[in-house]
């Protein structure tokens, strides 16, 4: 077991936030620079890069790194990295911009970062989809999104000059902050939990199983683009607040959000999620069954198997089996610890829970804590439309 807060990925925590006089100078410079307007998902990733969430990345990938990530799942310096972090542009957006120039990255018309353009290159979107999502089927939401992207990629380091306000400012922590927080709490082993769902009893079971042998639990819901039918971000947070208040001991849980889009890239995204939590200081990471999967595009345990390829990941994955309620055992268990047959087992289905909540009904207590269901049902429509 790792003995202290995890080291950042690639050996150092990236900080690309301009401060002091440099910040003033860059803000002035940005007014005159060619501008590239970013969609929300990429804009928040700029802030993630600047604050070390994506350490060791200092900007958007240049071609050599991009190709290594695509084919080898590693950066060109051999550090594991599975999801290409790229900036796509149309040729007419960068007329007159050449390699070596600075550009201003804007969100809603306001400059948020200055980027040094190291490289402008073409990419094969279908090949990207094939390698990252293991399919080119446009029914996969990640594939559909990739094929809509623009024709060129530009790579290079960024310097953040402004913060993008969040609806969840109170829950927005950066890696340097969680690292200090975990130390102040005296935690040496921290297990990270990635989620895009309101918690049901199965989630609670795996979190508590992991917490049994670690000092702290870092619940880190992903807020940002999600597919239709997923829980809205504010609903996930309200549901977790209710669960933590009623069912967790004081001072063993930190709840903070991560602003980045779900890619639904299954196994590759499981590694990506683990790396991000390592940067926040986690020593362990819970990998779910069909983690970051969608539909039937990935096998149920593919996201577990991929960890075998990364002996140098620097964070310990925890593979905790799916939980169910066993009437004979009288509690939440999993297949490894319960000897009873299927007839005694009540499965927890996320789909069924969502269907009941859609009708305004409270799921049975073995599926979801009543306080959690009540917190969700306070919202008129808790799901992404």
């Amino acid at each position: 077991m790792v003995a202290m807060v995890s080291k950042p990925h690639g050996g150092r925590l990236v900080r690309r936030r301009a401060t002091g006089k440099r910040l003033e100078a860059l803000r002035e410079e940005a007014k005159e620079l060619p501008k590239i307007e970013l969609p929300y998902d990429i804009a928040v990733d700029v802030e993630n890069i600047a604050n070390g969430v994506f350490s060791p990345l200092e900007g958007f990938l240049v071609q050599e790194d991009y190709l290594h990530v695509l084919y080898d799942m590693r950066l060109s310096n051999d550090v594991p990295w599975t999801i290409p972090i790229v900036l796509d542009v149309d040729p007419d957006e960068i007329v007159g911009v050449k390699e070596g120039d600075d550009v201003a990255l804007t969100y809603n018309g306001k400059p948020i970062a200055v980027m040094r353009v190291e490289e402008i290159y073409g990419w094969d979107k279908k090949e990207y989809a094939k390698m990252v999502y293991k399919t080119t089927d446009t029914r996969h939401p990640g594939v559909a999104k990739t094929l809509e992207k623009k024709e060129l990629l530009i790579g290079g380091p960024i310097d953040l000059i402004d913060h993008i306000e969040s609806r969840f400012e109170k829950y927005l922590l950066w890696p340097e902050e969680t690292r200090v927080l975990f130390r102040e709490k005296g935690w040496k082993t921290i297990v990270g939990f990635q989620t895009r769902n309101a918690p049901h009893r199965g989630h609670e079971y795996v979190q508590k199983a992991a917490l049994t042998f670690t000092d702290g639990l870092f619940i880190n819901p992903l807020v940002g683009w999600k597919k239709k039918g997923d829980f809205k971000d504010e609903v996930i947070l309200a549901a977790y607040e209710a669960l933590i208040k009623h069912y967790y001991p004081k001072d063993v849980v930190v709840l903070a959000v991560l602003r980045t889009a779900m890619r639904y890239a299954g196994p590759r995204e499981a590694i990506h999620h683990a790396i991000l939590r390592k940067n926040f200081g986690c020593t362990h990471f819970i990998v779910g069954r069909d983690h970051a999967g969608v539909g039937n595009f990935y096998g149920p345990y593919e996201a577990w198997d991929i960890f075998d390829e990364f002996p140098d990941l620097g964070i310990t994955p925890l593979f905790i089996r799916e939980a169910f309620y066993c009437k004979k055992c009288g509690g939440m268990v999993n297949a490894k610890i319960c000897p009873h047959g299927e007839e005694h087992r009540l499965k927890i289905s996320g789909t069924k829970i969502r269907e009941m909540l859609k009708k305004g009904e409270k799921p049975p207590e073995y599926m979801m804590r009543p306080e959690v269901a009540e917190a969700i049902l306070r919202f008129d429509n808790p799901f992404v439309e």
Partner: protein
Amino acid sequence: MSEKEKTRSRYTTVSIPVTLYNRIKELIKGTGFTSVSQYVTYVLREIIAAHEEARYTEPFSEEDKKRIIEKLKKLGYL
């Protein structure tokens, strides 16, 4: 040359004693490793990562730490 070949062709040769090679070859029989090279790459990555871990120091100063603790208190985390 395809994009894939551009990156995949970047391998080099490292010499190891034949006795060690044979020992590894025996060791990996019946495991998931399909070649000695694959095994050696795996082990080296594991060892190098451990060495890199040992050399790390946090980048923030005492002043940064104080500022962060203030923020965490204000937000109710501490």
